[in-house]
């Protein structure tokens, strides 16, 4: 993956370096969801801990994170995710929206989904809290259309192999042991971790996506494509 540094969008405070990683995949339409979930879950597996239980004297203990295997239906691939139904639901919702947006946009099937880990920094009134990203993962997706079943079968395997590479890439990044937010005190824990889940505690994250439309407005693209395809007969 490419590795760059980007600065946090904040005005007054000094910019904090946020590392950014980019992954790219080419998949068939029906593989989008599973491929995205595989990548996002793998990242979150590494970026989630057990629930913190604070005790007196500033000590805390950490709950236990369970894991489970997930088999893909449309890709020859399996991955491990954190055992948390809430987290899985949240990711599925985001990925589902991304997939629908990709499908409805009429673009050439290109888009990207981003997973950003951030810290909250409380500001004094009247300024609202800042979100300062410290790690940004971008997954670029290119949807391909396949003509027949044989191509689809090959695609199943190829995408499976590609995803294996992506997992290895993700693990490489995780292993660099670069910046991680300091372990927070009890009063600060919600500025670093998402404590809303009942069984695990991922770092604060947000997922966003955008659909790439290289030709301008999506309506024009669709019409042009339709006519082009018809004439191509």
């Amino acid at each position, binding site marked *: 993956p490419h590795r760059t540094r980007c600065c946090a969008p904040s005005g007054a405070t000094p910019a904090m370096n946020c590392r950014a990683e980019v992954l790219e995949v080419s998949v068939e339409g029906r593989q989008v969801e599973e491929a995205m979930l595989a990548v996002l879950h*793998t990242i979150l*597996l*590494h970026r989630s*801990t*057990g*629930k913190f*239980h604070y*005790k007196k*004297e*500033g*000590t*805390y*203990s*950490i*709950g*236990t*994170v*369970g*894991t*489970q*295997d997930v*088999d893909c239906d449309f890709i*020859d691939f*399996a*991955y*491990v995710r*954190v*055992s*948390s139904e809430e987290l899985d639901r949240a990711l599925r919702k985001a990925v589902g929206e991304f997939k629908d947006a990709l499908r409805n946009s009429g673009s050439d099937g290109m888009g990207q989904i981003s997973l950003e880990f951030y810290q909250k920094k409380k500001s004094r009134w009247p300024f609202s809290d800042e979100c300062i990203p410290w790690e940004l993962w971008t997954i670029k997706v290119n949807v391909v259309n396949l003509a027949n079943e044989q191509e689809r079968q090959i695609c199943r*395997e190829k995408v499976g192999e590609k*995803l*294996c590479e992506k*997992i*290895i890439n*993700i*693990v*490489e990044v*995780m*292993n660099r*042991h670069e910046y991680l937010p300091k*372990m*927070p*005190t*009890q009063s600060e824990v919600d500025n670093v971790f998402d404590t809303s889940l*009942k*069984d*695990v505690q991922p770092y604060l994250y947000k997922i966003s996506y955008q659909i790439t439309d290289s030709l301008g407005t999506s309506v024009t693209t669709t019409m*042009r494509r339709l*006519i*082009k395809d018809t*004439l191509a007969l």
Partner: protein
Amino acid sequence: AMDTDLSSQDRKDLDKFIKFFALKTVQVIVQARLGEKICTRSSSSPTGSDWFNLAIKDIPEVTHEAKKALAGQLPAVGRSMCVEISLKTSEGDSMELEIWCLEMNEKCDKEIKVSYTVYNRLSLLLKSLLAITRVTPAYRLSRKQGHEYVILYRIYFGEVQLSGLGEGFQTVRVGTVGTPVGTITLSCAYRINLAFMSTRQFERTPPIMGIIIDHFVDRPYPSSSPMHPCNYRAGEDNGAVYPSVEDSQEVCTTSFSTSPPSQSVFTVTKAHFQTPPPVVTDTLKVPVMGLAFSHQLSSSRLSYQPAALGVGSADMGYPVLFAGGLNAAHPHQLIGPGKEGGVPPIPSQPAHGTQADQERMCTPLDGVHYSAATPSSSEDTETVSNSSEGKCGSPHDLLETIFIRKVGAFVNKPINQVTMANLDIPFAMFAPKNIELEDNDPMVNPPESPETESPLQGSLHSEGSSGSSTGNTHDDFVMIDFKPAFSKDDILPMDLGTFYREFQNPPQLSSLSIDIGAQSMAEDLDSLPEKLAVHEKNVKEFDAFVETLQ
């Protein structure tokens, strides 16, 4: 001034972390090669026994083997802990697939905090290991084990031996963690020329099988550590064969502190199922307690078979077990012939005293893995019926297995004893029998089966059609490997595959018959010149339109 030497407390903690990290590493690797999906639950309250805050079950036998290999030592420079994963076919050929290495190098990080940073990074490394164990080629192979091959593991400690992986093996690094005494590295070297073996091996491609044959392994480095099957069954109720408790079955409840480093507290508590909640102390105790973990693996893990201690040779140690030649996830099919009409791999000669409908597993006797069946049994299958007469000699001898060996392509026996019914293709009885069709490749088109009656054959063949005549009506259509979805292992008289075959050649629709087709085509041809004339008139408009689309 910073104290650069490791305090004795930190040193003890670090050693303990490394030891349990090694044990958990082995568990993760072996469990990832069991052939099943693993699932553990998250728990928001620390249970006191989950090292590195991860729910990783401990299979007692695996822990035992790991401890045996380590023999009280820890990974150090030149002393690596290796988990070797290999594949062994039903023919007895084996091949090394992967070597997972936990190594230590000399690069020290004196300033890192043991009880906090090292611990958390080891936890992260275990998560990476969970992820990486699913992406090497051996994972997919291990998910399909049970029919033609099994996956074995072997743990050894010392020098890493990669020569068994063949040429061009690849390495993937799982991760590293720096500690004050050295840097821990976890990596995997894996054979790559099985990448294309993933789903299609054993079905039709002789060259691939050739690889396995060529790798009949006499271990180049005879080692004292035996091979074990990855999938096994925890003995039913015979308690812990291996004491799941040793002198130091230690638990770890860690407490972390957010206050400045000098005040960080690392505590270990004793957790006992019957004792009151753990008391947090500020010293590290070496627990001496009897934790009787009943390692209840979930009941869905039916593919486990007991890894018997068997009279092992140094090399093969633990004989290989098969789950009756069927998908191990469906043990209910391991029943007597004739039941459910499914494929009953068990011949009408169950082992002594076993009830036909009760699944039992046992180990084949060492050295006699695949003994020939007695003459009275069916000629088309070889069965190994191992009596339970105490020969197993293993702690798991409560269980027996009826072991069916699939006759594969490399069997050294007269061809006419090979029957198609043993091929792992569904609807084998429909496959054409003509051997000329596929280059004499017995994997694709085995020769005719003899007409012997056996309970196995009787249940495979549908009523009214004997095995050898069914294929004749389909001579013109070579169906080699027909696997309709959802019906892989299901050879019933009438099911999806049969349905498909019967209806795959429906009669032509009358509207598509030749004279009507010819008629409308003639009409089309006649009207063409008119249409062309019209289009030619408007050619300028069309051109302009096309321009706008460019």
